[in-house]
């Protein structure tokens, strides 16, 4: 993928001062392509392949220290940088926004070290790194979504020891998690979990889908794209490959519920099928608005735009309607053609 000119520059330095001279040059001279050395990138890719082979299973990898603080997307950026090549287009989202400072910082690192094109358009990107959201626009089979993960193991809600939990995963022993859900219902009448909702992947591994809202959880099931989950601080990578069954844990008579919103339309673009966040305004009011900022902008330009507008009539449902009284039917169709659009406002393009 790249030569090792950066490393060679370090190797040829005669003294620390020479080295420092080379580092203080413009940009990031003195560093390898895509920041990580090739050995590290290979190792991350190997872990990624293992993760894809065992959907939902947490694969340990030797996480490197990055020039970002741990807990700020270091697993995600290591994964992204190990995948990116000069022909890629990279998008970074933090809590739904391309413009949040941490997203900008990660995007800047990739642009400086890997010479990739960057974009804010989810349909344009080949690799999207995201913190806590899955984009509103349906992802394709040639796209990879890299999710930043703060806490890798859903079982840590019931036991702090990863050692004990690893054994539980090995034997699909998830009864303690189920008891926690049972006790939730006993205490509150429903399952109290908000984000980081535990899901069973491929009927085998219990997985923490990262702190995406419950709204986004159904998108993981039988998607066309690859989802990679990466935790730098905890040194784990896991994956949901395309068309993998992903099922949120719930009881037959206490079903999984997504977030509800008192107002069902975005205050900015009027969408009624997107995840909204509430905003307290300066004049003391409260407004609900799309969380996916770049899609909200598109919808403002064209309110009839479908979430699958770029997929040539393939209207894959991707996120439920905000009004719970509007029926949300998942498409049970198999294969590529997923039938008519469910909750999308406009027709397909």
């Amino acid at each position, binding site marked *: 993928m790249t030569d090792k000119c950066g490393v060679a520059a370090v190797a040829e330095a005669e003294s620390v001062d020479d080295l420092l001279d080379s580092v203080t040059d413009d940009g990031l001279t003195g560093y390898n392509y895509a920041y990580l050395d090739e050995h590290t990138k290979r190792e991350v890719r190997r872990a990624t392949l293992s993760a894809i082979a065992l959907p939902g299973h947490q694969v340990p990898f030797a996480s490197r220290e990055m020039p970002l603080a741990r807990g700020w997307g270091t697993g995600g950026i290591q994964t992204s940088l190990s995948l990116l090549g000069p022909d890629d287009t990279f998008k970074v989202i933090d809590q739904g926004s391309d*413009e949040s400072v941490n997203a900008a910082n990660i995007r800047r690192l990739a642009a400086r070290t890997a010479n990739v094109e960057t974009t804010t358009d989810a349909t344009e990107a080949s690799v999207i790194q995201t913190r806590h959201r899955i984009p509103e626009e349906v992802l394709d089979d040639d796209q990879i979504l890299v999710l930043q993960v703060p806490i890798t193991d859903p079982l840590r809600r019931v036991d702090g020891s990863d050692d004990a939990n690893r054994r539980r995963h090995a034997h699909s022993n998830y009864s303690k998690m189920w008891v926690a859900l049972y006790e939730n219902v006993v205490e509150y009448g429903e399952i109290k979990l*908000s984000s980081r909702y535990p899901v069973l992947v491929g009927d085998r591994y219990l997985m923490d889908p990262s702190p995406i809202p419950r709204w986004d959880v159904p998108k993981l099931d039988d998607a066309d794209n690859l989802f990679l989950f990466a935790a730098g601080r905890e040194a784990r990578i896991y994956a949901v490959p395309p068309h993998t069954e992903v099922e949120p844990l719930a009881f037959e008579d206490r*079903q999984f519920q997504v977030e509800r919103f008192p107002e069902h339309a975005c205050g900015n673009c009027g969408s009624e099928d997107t995840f909204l966040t509430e905003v307290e305004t300066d004049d003391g009011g409260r407004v609900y608005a799309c969380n996916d900022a770049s899609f909200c902008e598109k919808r403002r330009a064209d309110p009839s735009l479908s979430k699958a507008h770029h997929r040539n009539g393939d209207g894959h449902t991707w996120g439920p309607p905000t009004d719970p009284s509007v029926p949300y039917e998942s498409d049970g169709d198999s294969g590529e053609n997923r039938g008519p659009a469910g909750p999308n406002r406009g027709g397909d393009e």
Partner: protein
Amino acid sequence: MGYVAVEAGEDVIQRAEELFEKQRVVGESDQISVEQVGEQFSRLTAQAMSEGGLYAPRLAAIAVKQAQGDTAEAAFLLRAYRSTLERWGTSVPVETAEVFTTRRVSPAYKDVPGGQVLGATKDYTQRLLDFELIDDDGTDPTGDWDVEAEDPPRLRNVMEVLREDGLVYDPERDPDRDDDASSGAGTEPFDATREPITFPAPRSAVLQELARGETGAVTALGYSELRGYGQVHPTLGEVRTGDLPVTIEHPYTGDEVEVTTAAVTETECVVPIYEKSDDPQFSFGYGLVFGRNERKTIGMSILDAAIQLDGEGAAQDAEFVLDVVDGIDSFGFIEHLKLPHYVTFQSILDRIRSIRERSAAAADETDPAPQEVGADD
């Protein structure tokens, strides 16, 4: 609109960085040089090197200056830099008895072979603010000493005395142990910077993570043992500081060549808890860190002993200690809470509202049906 999240991207980051840099230069005084940081704040650079896991005094001085004295940040800068370096080779293992010792005290014995070497220390100085430092003229207080400068000696390790008498447990000779500590000398140690640690972790991994641990965390967790949340109350065999020779094999001749030295602090302790009742031997603990940092090595030796005992105390649980001791991890994750969390918070708000509605409704009805929204299965 009214509301803009913490956004607007790279311009804002740039401005914020510039404001931060301004704090360093805005005062009236001259700029502090990297040399001054290295020579006059050696404890800061030592801490940055030990927590950063990179022995590079000059880089550490730059890091401390760049971080405006924040050691966690400075250690982080060194770690991030370190992870980009290619590994050219591995030095030859050395006995720490080879250290050119500038200070060595043995609390276990009144006198020891080689003697107690007090060296440079503030331990017995009364902690009074020294106002004369305001007009520090840089006079060498030892300038008028009438002693001949000697090369620092190499001193036999105090614990060897106990080891020769068979009084100290030796994990390398314990057939009941199956981790790498028992496989004896010559076994490649674990490399915590290249391999992910899983538990139970080999002792070499534990020692590496402790050696890179955050000084405050190592001190606090070690203290927890003394404070009654564990049983390890050690007697220190010795605490020593000095320069450890770094030896490599010559790439052409294969001869061992001493290339440099690294300033280190080392502690070994014995713990009067016996590993086995049929053959009573002291448990022990070991600590070694880059630079001068005695409390960290003592804390480290307590934690090493505590983890080897594997008992009930918080600091005796290797998984717990290693999960929380690393400053780069804890600093990053603690501070990430400053990042926007409005998506997750929206999800949390939804739950509490839903549950409150339910309990309000339960006052009227007996069994409200759960609202099933968006179940996709």
